[in-house]
């Protein structure tokens, strides 16, 4: 729906204050809209805020278990969004996004266990959990991108580095950092929940407040990224993805940009990791295994590369599905998942959300066309 349509609606609408409100509504969202995202119209935002409203009252209608589980799905969504930026938009095929998640989680765990007594101990842990993966990945990014490594080779290096973390962390069964026992393959447990003590604003995370915190962060990350990809930087990202050499000829320092993007994505992945570990109180090295490392790749591919919405939705639905499959108590869950991946790839090669968007666009244009034909007749 473009502006001309808004105009016609406006003129046909007798309530001026209402159309004024609608304009404000559109104006507010304009900054999040652009050709680089799906959902650039009033209907989308109406549905978006509608779902948000449902999510706001959700804790009042479900039990703790459903709520807790949902919170974890939102955390996975944040992780998926971070990979969507790095890979989907910027074209850096990063197999190590889960490693940023794990690094963030471990960093948070170690700092939080050691500094729980300290005021704001977990806030410091949160910061370190975000910064550490960003720094590590900046170093790795520097190593790769300043050495002209690109494409599939980035995927292999990031995968190999992830597996090295896995190997090293499984070796830590007797290792302690301060009071924190890394625990090897058994993992690190007893990690305190985030406590936000920021001047005059302090609350312990209960399942409900944790849910709201994660929900708010998820929405903020989504909108923030929408804003970014539709801004100047978004176009640069896509330029890098589409044609690196040409972008370079226009005077952009590709190596620097890619390193920065890689590192920013890692910060976001680290944030998700911190939230997750605060949520579960536990983390183990399987986060760095081959299976885990593939998960974000699968979400983004299934949802649709180059769409934030798709990556997020796919992460939510796939995690939900594998959760429920596990709950069915059968040995066939992996078979179901495998078949699901194959079917999605065969029938929605560009991802589920872009496919649905195309279908929606096709449907609404034919409807519009038939509508205008009828008008012409009458």
């Amino acid at each position: 729906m473009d502006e001309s349509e808004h105009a016609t609606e406006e003129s046909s609408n007798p309530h001026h204050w209402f159309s004024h409100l609608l304009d404000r509504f559109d104006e507010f969202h304009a900054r999040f809209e652009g050709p680089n995202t799906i959902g650039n119209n009033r209907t989308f935002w109406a549905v978006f805020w509608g779902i948000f409203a449902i999510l706001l009252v959700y804790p009042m209608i479900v039990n703790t278990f459903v709520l807790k589980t949902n919170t974890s799905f939102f955390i996975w969504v944040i992780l998926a969004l971070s990979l969507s930026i790095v890979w989907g938009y910027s074209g850096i095929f990063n197999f190590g996004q889960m490693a940023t998640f794990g690094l963030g989680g471990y960093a948070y765990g170690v700092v939080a266990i050691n500094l729980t007594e300290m005021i704001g101990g977990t806030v410091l842990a949160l910061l370190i959990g975000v910064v550490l993966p960003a720094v590590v990945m900046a170093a790795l990014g520097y190593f790769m991108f300043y050495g002209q490594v690109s494409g599939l080779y980035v995927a292999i290096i990031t995968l190999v580095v992830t597996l090295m973390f896995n190997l090293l962390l499984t070796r830590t069964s007797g290792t302690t950092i301060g009071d924190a026992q890394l625990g090897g393959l058994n993992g690190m447990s007893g990690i305190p929940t985030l406590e936000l003590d920021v001047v005059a604003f302090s609350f312990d995370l209960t399942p409900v407040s944790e849910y709201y915190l994660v929900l708010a962060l998820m929405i903020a990350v989504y909108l923030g990224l929408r804003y970014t990809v539709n801004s100047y930087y978004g176009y640069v990202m896509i330029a890098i993805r589409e044609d690196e050499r040409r972008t370079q000829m226009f005077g952009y320092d590709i190596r620097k940009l890619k390193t920065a993007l890689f590192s920013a994505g890692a910060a976001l992945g680290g944030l998700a990791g911190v939230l997750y570990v605060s949520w579960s109180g536990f983390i183990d090295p399987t986060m760095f295994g081959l299976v885990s490392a593939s998960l974000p790749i699968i979400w983004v591919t299934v949802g649709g590369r180059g769409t934030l919405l798709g990556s997020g939705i796919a992460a939510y639905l796939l995690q939900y599905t594998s959760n429920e499959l596990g709950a069915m108590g059968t040995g066939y869950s992996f078979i179901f998942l495998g078949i699901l991946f194959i079917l999605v790839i065969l029938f929605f090669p560009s991802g589920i959300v872009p496919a649905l968007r195309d279908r929606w666009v096709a449907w609404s244009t034919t409807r519009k066309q038939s509508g205008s034909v009828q008008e012409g007749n009458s």
Partner: protein
Amino acid sequence: MGARKSTDRSGQTTPNAHGSGKNSRRRFLKAAGGLGSAAGLSALAGCIGSLGSDDETIRIGTLYDNSGELGFTGEGKDAVTEMFLEEQDYELLGREVELISYDPAGDNTQYQNLTRRIIQEDEVDMLFGALLSSNREAMRPIVNENKQLYSYNDWYEGGVCDQFTFINTTLSSQQRPMIEFMIDNFGPDYYAIVADYNYGTISNQYARFYAEEYGGQPVGEEFVPLGVDEFGSTINDIQQADPDWILSLTIGAPQASFFEQAEAAGLDVPYGSMSNIAGTYEHKTFEPPVMTDTYSCFSYFEEIPTERNQEFVEKFKSEYPDFDYVFLSIVDAYTALQLYWEAVELAGTVDQEEVAAAYESGDISVEAPSGTVAMDPETHHATQDMWLAHVDESHEVQFLDVDGNPTDEPISEQVGTSDWFASECQLASESTWDDPITEQYIPEEGDLTE
């Protein structure tokens, strides 16, 4: 009865037919509730939670992998759980028993999700679960947070000291008769090949401690990452060290390739194993004579010659012919149920705090397929008989006594935990339901000798 009878395996060839019938429908409704709520149909979810609550029914939950790397082990445990419940006619204290089992598929995230689900949604009276220690450690924070009575029953390194957790299985420290036997019969110098992972490294510490006590020492140690199946350099290293025997702490089938490769390389040294045969039946999966002269000391082997055991093995194999070998994990799951039944009957209720008190009474002792198994009140770990198995060149198992003579008796009776752990962990006297201890103690250098 209807509810859980439906978990009968339909046709023995497909070992996974859980959750057909009523229960799966209920679960499906729940699933729909969860999904619906996300899609805005959440009004449903609230009332479905209360649908299944029936005070008369006793609910038993199991979380054993049915898929993933250890899927087969978990299937065995779920199968024997069914067999036990059928033997009990799905009744306890005259009340109907319902079994709720999920498949965490070897994924710790799933273990956490499903632990929440089974405690908070299904509200089980007793929870059995976890295969690996890492699964258990993923579960325990949630178990403790919810004050859930919980049984762990798969062989592990030891050290869990937890008000809510009761453990029956073979611990590393309980395998000490093997160390003594090897040193007495083959010599003091051993080479340790150790899975680089908690079970391996911590068991290795125990092994070193007991070896020292019995006058032996390691002449070499190699720590091998899980999943590694390449042992060329290790074999070289062993030949250089020239030990009297090899301490095997290999974990998982890939690492078991060591035996085939050692045999092929012409390495001819006896193995004292703290990880093979009982749990992973290498003498059945490798062609003879690869495992020749392996000595393994556990609380259970399929070959245990007691009448009780032979009946059990025969029954299980006829009901579940997919299982060629009845391994330790299966029997420990069965014994865990026996212990729970006895505790509930003693307490006269399934109230979790009272059942825990019954477990701690010191009167819990059952005749398991492996022999007499008793629950130690202070450590919440089982005290049991240890058998020393010897694998011969045709991969037959004989049981030996301390002198190496064939016997029909365990090598050591009613073996408890290590002295160190017993002194560290005193749950009955120091921990209560409302002020619980929930630790895992890992021996640090020198801890054991003090």
